[in-house]
């Protein structure tokens, strides 16, 4: 039995695939592409928190605007979750050379 490196696993090969399965880039190009999404995640989280707090206050002061505010809070919370799934929670594989 050959001992493999734990990072090396058996996988399928799609020989008739038209597009390449791997792309090549530099660290900075790849990182800066996803940094935009990470900044979105921070921004949407801030919007969600502010709108939720505002909504809780407005639901007593101005109920109509309060409901709208809470609606936008959930909307931005979903956007935040989506941006998070694309960056920090992402399981897409990358290989980094030295």
């Amino acid at each position: 039995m050959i001992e493999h490196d734990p990072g090396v696993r058996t996988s399928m090969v799609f020989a008739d695939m038209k597009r390449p399965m791997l792309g090549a880039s530099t660290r900075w190009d790849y990182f800066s592409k996803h940094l935009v999404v990470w900044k979105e995640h921070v921004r949407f989280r801030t919007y969600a928190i502010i709108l939720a707090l505002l909504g809780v206050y407005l639901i007593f002061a101005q109920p109509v605007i309060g409901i709208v505010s809470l609606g936008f809070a959930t909307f931005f919370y979903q956007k935040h979750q989506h941006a998070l799934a694309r960056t920090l929670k992402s399981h897409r594989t990358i290989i980094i050379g030295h």
Partner: protein
Amino acid sequence: MSNHVKIADLKHYVKKEKVTNPTIPLFVPMDQAGDMLEGGKKVPVHTAHTYTRGDKMEELVVDPGRTGGLASGYIGYFYAIVSFILVVLTYNVSLYLAAVFAYAFGYYWSQRMLAPFWNITWFKGKMLYYTK
């Protein structure tokens, strides 16, 4: 009739293509049976490492404090501003207290300037493969 061709004429035949993926060097040592020993047995040289995007992003962005990520720069910038305000506020209260905040300002300002170097700027041009 001469065979002389002007370069300006040839320009019409050259298809201009922007190079999107230039060749990026990946260090691969030729001699794998060298002194790279691990627990007494010879192993291939660890040339490339596999991450998930989340792990690498976390390493580059989130980890605060002297890890060479972007967050160290942003957090350093924030604390530098806070320290500077505290210097101004405590200057007339106690000069020694103001000196402590001045030290903190210098420390965090240097973090803001230097932190992105260790992990980001110096490794900008390194090779990265990603799954499509």
